[in-house]
């Protein structure tokens, strides 16, 4: 499942008085994924190292001037480019201190934005739709700039992508309620123009987001009624020429987000990967009408994957750079890391079992449909072959010399289809075990251990294996069995316990009712020793700084406690009688007492903690309010 992690603050903001504007004009990636350039809506550009939450540089234009487009970083030249007062292009480097002393060029028409996609060159998009490469523009700054857009047409949004070898500027405009998309290719210059299908009258998209895949541009856009559509444009295009009627592009509804009452005002949707979209300013489906949420939706299954309430007003601004979302809210700019693992139906529904490292070694062997339906010819003969092989091996196991047996097993284990042989392996092992039991001189522990390691075995398949190991005092093999067999009977567990008092035993599965009678078989010395060991483990574990002693294979605190209780239950009357157990019992008594006290204290503060949870979050105070207070 996609997840949003705990965020952190990158910087404070100075929003406008009426909170209509976050104060951030734009955020662009800098040299690497950990550096960004933040342009505020007035005069300054600040460069941050994101993981350190630390500004590394800041540049400000003079009082009276203002930055009119977000600064971009050109990694090829290591220069920053920004535009002030619509017509002045400014270029500077990190080591420049004063912006006033750096390069400036005034152009003849108002600039909408400067873009610089990674791998591309900086491109300038003018407000009237013309596009120039920055280099060619700077060679003659005062060159005439043509008007592409119609009279009442205005740019709403733009971006820049590099598709294989060609660089594209994509921008959307609005004209009399229509939304148009322009696809401007550079070197060679091409221009395509499309028209979006109209949504309900009066609604135009709130936000756009673009991804490029397989020679197609995927444009995703969000309407105030919560509808998220996707349209796909080919970069080759149909060669529409200027002046031609713009083609209407087909669209597909990806998501219909819940909007609560009324329409969305400040919201945006951003594509994270093929299946995930981040959305801000849209209500959480299970949290009422409040719109101050950041959510990740899965577009394949239309399910909400993760949601987070953002304190303070959301401005509908959102950026994403390398698995981090940048979101201005209230008076802060927060960075929220996220993950979007590849989605499957199971994970979307939240049902995928956490695959453990050990389990991943043994993929389930499901025969392929192809094989079953179209029955490859080789298949029957193979089964016959396997059967022959098993019969031969069994024979060998019954009579062969230990060395030969060993060799055969190694051969068996090196086969690629060992998983398919699961039933046969059980059969073969039980032959080996019964031979060992019958013939005390025949015992090959390494081979048995190897077989247990395959994880094809279980206790039911070879019930005598553990007993054999116990008899031979091969505790290593016993441990392996305890570790890998899912179905060891309680009686056997107890038998193991008697033979050695180890952690593996504590971790085997058991059922109290079945274990209890077997535990009673333990002798008093065993019981005392076992309890002492359990107490030792418990004390070790209750120290906070005690690291997990045996790596992954160590019993948990609850397992230890359960065993203590079980052993005490089974032998309490006897333990009370024997003098040497007295100290131990007193110790156990005192720690039970302390546990009880702790729990009762915890119980007392439960109410307060609950109250903390219910406490109202302090609401944001604006510039002015009239409040009623009461003093007592």
């Amino acid at each position, binding site marked *: 499942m996609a997840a949003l992690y705990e965020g952190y603050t990158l*910087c*404070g*903001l*100075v929003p406008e*008085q009426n909170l209509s504007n976050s104060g951030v004009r734009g955020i662009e990636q800098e040299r690497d994924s950990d550096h960004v350039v933040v342009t505020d809506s007035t005069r300054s550009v*600040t460069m941050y190292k994101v993981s350190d939450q630390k*500004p*590394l*540089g*800041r540049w400000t234009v003079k009082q009276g001037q203002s930055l009119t487009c977000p600064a971009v970083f050109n990694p090829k030249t290591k220069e920053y480019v920004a535009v002030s007062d619509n017509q002045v292009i400014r270029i500077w480097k990190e080591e420049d*201190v004063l912006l006033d002393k750096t390069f400036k060029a005034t152009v003849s028409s108002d600039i909408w934005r400067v873009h610089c996609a990674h791998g591309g060159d900086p491109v300038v998009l003018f407000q009237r739709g013309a596009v120039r490469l920055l280099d060619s523009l700077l060679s003659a700054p005062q060159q005439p700039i043509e008007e592409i857009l119609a009279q009442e047409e205005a740019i709403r949004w733009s971006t820049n992508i590099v598709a294989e070898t060609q660089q594209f500027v994509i921008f959307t405009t609005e004209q009399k309620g229509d939304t148009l998309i322009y696809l401007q290719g550079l070197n060679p210059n091409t221009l395509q123009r499309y028209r979006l299908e109209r949504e309900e009258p009066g609604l135009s998209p709130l936000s756009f987001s673009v991804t490029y895949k397989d020679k197609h541009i995927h444009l995703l856009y969000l309407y105030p009624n919560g509808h998220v559509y996707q349209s796909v444009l080919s970069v080759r295009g149909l060669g529409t020429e200027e002046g031609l009627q713009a083609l209407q592009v087909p669209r597909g509804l990806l998501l219909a987000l819940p909007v609560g009452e009324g329409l969305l005002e400040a919201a945006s949707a951003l594509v994270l990967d093929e299946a995930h979209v981040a959305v801000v300013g849209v209500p959480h489906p299970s949290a009422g009408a409040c719109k101050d949420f950041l959510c990740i939706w899965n577009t394949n299954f239309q399910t909400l994957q993760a949601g987070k309430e953002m304190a303070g007003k959301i401005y509908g601004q959102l950026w994403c750079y390398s698995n981090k979302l940048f979101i201005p809210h209230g*008076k802060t700019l927060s960075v929220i890391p996220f993950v979007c693992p590849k989605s499957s139906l199971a994970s979307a529904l939240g049902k995928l079992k956490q695959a453990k490292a050990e389990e991943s070694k043994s993929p389930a062997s499901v025969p392929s449909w192809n094989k079953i339906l179209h029955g490859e010819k080789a298949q029957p003969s193979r089964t016959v072959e396997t059967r022959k092989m098993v019969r031969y091996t069994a024979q060998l196991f019954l009579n062969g010399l230990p060395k030969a047996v060993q060799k055969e097993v190694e051969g068996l284990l090196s086969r690629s289809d060992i998983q398919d042989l699961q039933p046969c392996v059980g059969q073969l092992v039980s032959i080996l075990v019964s031979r060992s039991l019958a013939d005390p001189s025949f015992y090959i522990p390494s081979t048995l251990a190897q077989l247990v390691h395959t994880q094809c075995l279980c206790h039911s398949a070879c019930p005598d294996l553990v007993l054999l190991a116990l008899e031979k005092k091969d505790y290593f093999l016993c441990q392996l069995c305890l570790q890998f067999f899912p179905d060891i009977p309680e009686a056997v567990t107890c038998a193991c316990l008697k033979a050695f008092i180890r952690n593996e035993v504590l971790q085997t599965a058991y059922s109290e009712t079945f274990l209890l009678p077997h535990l009673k078989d333990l002798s008093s010395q065993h019981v005392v020793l076992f309890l002492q060991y359990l107490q030792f483990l418990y004390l070790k574990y209750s120290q906070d700084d005690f690291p997990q002693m045996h790596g992954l294979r160590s019993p948990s605190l609850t397992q230890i406690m359960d065993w203590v209780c079980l052993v005490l239950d089974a032998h309490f009357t006897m333990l009370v009688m024997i003098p040497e157990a007295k100290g131990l019992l007193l110790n156990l008594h005192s720690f039970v007492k302390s546990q009880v006290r702790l729990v009762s204290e915890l119980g007392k503060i439960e109410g307060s903690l609950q109250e903390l949870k219910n406490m109202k979050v302090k609401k944001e*105070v*604006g*510039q*002015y*309010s*009239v*409040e*009623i*207070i*009461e*003093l*007592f």
Partner: protein
Amino acid sequence: MGEFKVHRVRFFEYMPSPIRAMAFNSRTDRLAVARGDGAVEIFNFADNYFQEKVIPGQDSRAVEALCWVGQRLFSAGLNGEITEYDLENLRPKYTVMAYGGPAWTLSMSTECFLCQVGCEDGTVKMFEILEERIQFQRNHDRQKGRIISLSWHPSGTHIAAGMMGMIRIFETETGSPANKEVVVWSVAFLSDHTVISGDSAGKVQVWDGFTGTLIKTHLITKWDVLALSDQSSLVAGTSEGTVTQFQFLPLIVGQQDKEWVRTRTFKNHSHDVRALAHTETAVVSGGMDTQLVVQPLLDRVEKNTQESALRKIAFPHRSLVCCAKKSGLLLFQFPEHLELWRLGESDGHGKPGDSLPVRKKPEKLIHLKRKGEDHICCSALSPCGGWLAYTTVSSVRLYRLQYNNNSISIKKLPKLPKELCSAHQLCFSSDSSKLFASSKHSSVIVVALGQSECKYLHTLKPKSGYGTTEQPVHLLFVSEDSKWLAAANTGCEIHIYNLNKLKLHCTVPVYSSCPTAIAIHPVTSNLVTVHANQQIFEYSLAQKEYTEWSRKLQKQGLHNLWLERDTPITHISFNPNNQAHIILHDMFMLCIIDQSLPLPDRKTLLYNQMTLRSVPESERLRHSHAFKICKNFQHLLCVSTLEDQALVVVERPLLDIMSQLPAPVRQKKFAT
């Protein structure tokens, strides 16, 4: 006790100026702090760190260094001038041009009454300190680069100068060149001829002053070491906002050989530490983040006392907000301009905890820029809103305001009486017919206001004689009936004048701590005073003695938690609905004292509003005491009552100030 309608105001965009330099006078326990706008503030460390005096800044004055000589205060700045301040009249006394370009540093030798200035042109200029002025004596050999820092040897025979890449000791002429291009931001010259330097490479270095050899280097920051101060131990401030302490200790216990060892690091600032002072018991630091921080050294103070608490001084201890009660107007004072706002209006009623819908938003009526170079030192608005006055150290300006429906006209009164040439405090009578201005020698000038002119009436003076000081008046208050005028000065005196007779009525017994707020009760005519040490007094003007309640309060003593608060009370007002209510505030709380209720004793819960809220109404009276403290509002600059019985609170959240500061990185100034 009751409900209050509160106008919660956060549109005063007050921005303190960064701290540039400071100097501590251990003899008088006074700290002088210079800010980026040229203002100089004096804090009395003996009196609860009260901000006693403020000398307003000036456009051209950028103070780089401050220095005390006895009780005299000098500064040098980038305008190339050396200034001595008149601490009685809160203005520069005189300035002397150093003729060396911008002056970067100033160092005084108290031994031989000499002062040296380090200049841009590479000269160290020596001035003789005379009784009433300073006089140029001579130049030292001119150096190649600018002189950034200076430190006298305590004997007065040598001086160490830090500059670009080297430290030079004058008179002995043994320089000690460093390899890398670094700026020696600060030097300290110790009595054993050790010179310690802090530089732009982030190092604190210990040098032998005789031979010019380097003894020890401590790398303490990636950025710059900006400031040093010594007093048995040495502290260094960096542009990361940290302060590092060094102590002269034997490396092995019991041995004689001592070395400067880095001992502690404090991080109390978000930005550059530009100025440091080392007192006997504490390190005082300040810088770009505008806050003054007093960090006690726990080995020098007694633990768990008030002295051992960290103190941050963020707001001035005087009022920058003036509220016109009758007209619902607020006047905000900035160094450069004044803003006049009209409060908004709300609809209907609500229950406690509610925010009422705002029918009319607050409106900014006037943005008045000051004239001339000098910054505004105080301002006042008449209760009717019809008059506005402000002063700088060089002039007083008075304006007539007229409101016609939606338009507002402002007219400057062309001719002011010549007596009204400068003032430390201004105050209008409640009927707006008179203006009071405190002037030289604790006097107060009374001016009558007509329709469009004003007339000098009288000068009120305290009785001069034994025991009276001539300290500036920092608080003025006129009673509601315009009969009484109270004037408090930084010499801790409070004079009461009878305005009907235009003469001194009495002087309140002088208390050892400076008053931080005064007010006269509109009905009982009792004077309420609160002092820097948090004590509260009530003085009957009719009886000329402390009231019964005041005596009871003194006898029983104030609650410990009240005394431990570390910001002063800066306003007092009274509840027009209830005679027994005194409304006070400091930076973090608003308090209503109900004189009819019993005083809290040592064991009582002082902050008991939450408790009272939770007990049933019938039991509340049994649990309540006189101090009703409300902490709903924080970072308060002003709390005032309006004629319609609503309260106005003006907040300036520190977070808002922080967000306005430049990014906390080293600002390259030149060639570093």
